[in-house]
């Protein structure tokens, strides 16, 4: 499209022949002879062989339904000949059309074919006419479409900014997600066979964590204080199991006053139950360090 354009021969490319449709064809040469240079430009401004053919037919005010095949074909061939020398790749589709025109022309010369099954006569031009009309229809539709107001070109969308306050979004997790994660672990674990996952009473594990937290300060705690009587017997049992489990896992240390005087320093007088020596529970750091 950057080729120098002869203004007298053809209009600038911005408004090509699309819009000539049905209107005076001002931009085109008055006769059908076009110098080869201009022809190249002209052909580029056609959208293809159908477009050129339509132009030729419209230009000559030919009834599209009664195309004079001989005249149109010979003109068409002149264009194609001129084009072949300069733009062979562009010419291919035009050559195909030329072949079709010649085929139609030759079939017109043959004796009439017998009627087809539908009972309609087989006019060799029928298919070409159908295509030309369909193309013409689309060409017009494209023009109409281009006339519609277009966002960005003919109007602009209106909007206001919304400066949302930035909030750091953290992933959300639901209990069901944990369940799904556990199921996927289980599935894999079962494939591995050698590993079995024992189901355990959650509340014991929970209570184990709870006790460890209570003992976090490193001090000795009265065994009794670990038990919350208000929450009922089941929790007492669970807490007791948790203590046993923790002892078994060497996570806490249980000692009784009198047996470990060192740990009792300064605390013996608080012993709340006179009947037996108080039991103390602590984190085993000291033990570990002494080991």
């Amino acid at each position, binding site marked *: 499209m950057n080729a120098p354009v002869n203004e007298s021969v053809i209009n600038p490319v911005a408004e*090509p022949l699309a819009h000539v449709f049905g209107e005076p064809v001002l931009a085109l040469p008055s006769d059908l002879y076009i110098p080869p240079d201009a022809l190249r430009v002209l052909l580029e401004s056609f959208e293809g062989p159908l477009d050129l053919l339509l132009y030729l037919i419209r230009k000559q005010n030919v009834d599209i339904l009664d195309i004079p095949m001989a005249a149109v074909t010979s003109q068409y061939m002149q264009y194609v000949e001129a084009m072949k020398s300069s733009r062979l790749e562009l010419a291919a589709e035009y050559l195909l059309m030329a072949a079709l025109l010649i085929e139609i022309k030759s079939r017109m010369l043959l004796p009439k074919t017998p009627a087809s099954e539908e009972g309609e006569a087989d006019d060799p031009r029928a298919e070409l006419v159908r295509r030309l009309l369909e193309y013409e229809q689309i060409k017009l539709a494209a023009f109409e479409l281009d006339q519609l107001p277009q966002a960005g070109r003919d109007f*602009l969308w209106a909007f206001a900014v919304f400066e949302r306050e930035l909030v750091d979004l953290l992933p959300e997790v639901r209990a069901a997600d944990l369940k799904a994660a556990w199921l996927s672990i289980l599935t894999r674990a079962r494939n591995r066979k050698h590993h079995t996952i024992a189901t355990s009473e959650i509340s014991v594990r929970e209570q184990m964590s709870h006790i460890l937290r209570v003992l976090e300060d490193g001090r000795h705690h009265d065994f009794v204080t670990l038990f919350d009587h208000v929450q009922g017997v089941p929790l007492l049992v669970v807490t007791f199991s948790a203590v046993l489990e923790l002892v078994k896992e060497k996570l806490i240390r249980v000692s009784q006053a009198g047996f470990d005087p060192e740990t009792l320093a300064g605390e013996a007088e608080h012993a709340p139950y006179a009947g037996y020596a108080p039991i103390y529970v602590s984190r085993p750091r000291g033990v570990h360090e002494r080991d």
Partner: protein
Amino acid sequence: MSEIDRRHLKNVIEAALLVNQEPLSVAQLKALFGVPPEGAELVAVLEELQRDWDGRGVELVRLANGWRFRARLDMQPYLERLKPEKPPRYSRAVMETLAIIAYKQPVTRGEIEEIRGVTVSSAIIQTLKERGWIDVVGHKEVPGRPELLATTRDFLADLGLASLKDLPPLTELGNLVVPDLADAAAAASPQE
């Protein structure tokens, strides 16, 4: 609904329509509220807003996929002075391809080529895809499984259309072809 509530409703809807970069449907507008208003009430508010904006430089329009504010067409000469970069005017090849997709959708590239009588370059299809006006809605079950192309809601919105039915009607092809051609055929073979 009290006057104050209704006013608030209108304010929220107006703000939402202005900050959203896409049209908003009535369903989307409903979802703005903890206690969603009735659809009919919302539409009434939208129509009231439309009237409020009457005679101003911006208008509220109803599009295929909802409502959106846009500058009125007659504002364009002024607004263009601020936005020197104009969007491209598409070539005939692009517009013809678009027209075929719009009117004949869903179509394959091969079908477009058949109508236009020339190969349709990938660049043309790509341009329309990038503009967000067409997309692939499936594949035709023929050898090569070519893409089936159709226009998008954005296409309708960008052309200010509420639906494909609002496209300029095609000139009637049937009337031109069938009777005349049948006549011609009859004349050509009088034995029929």
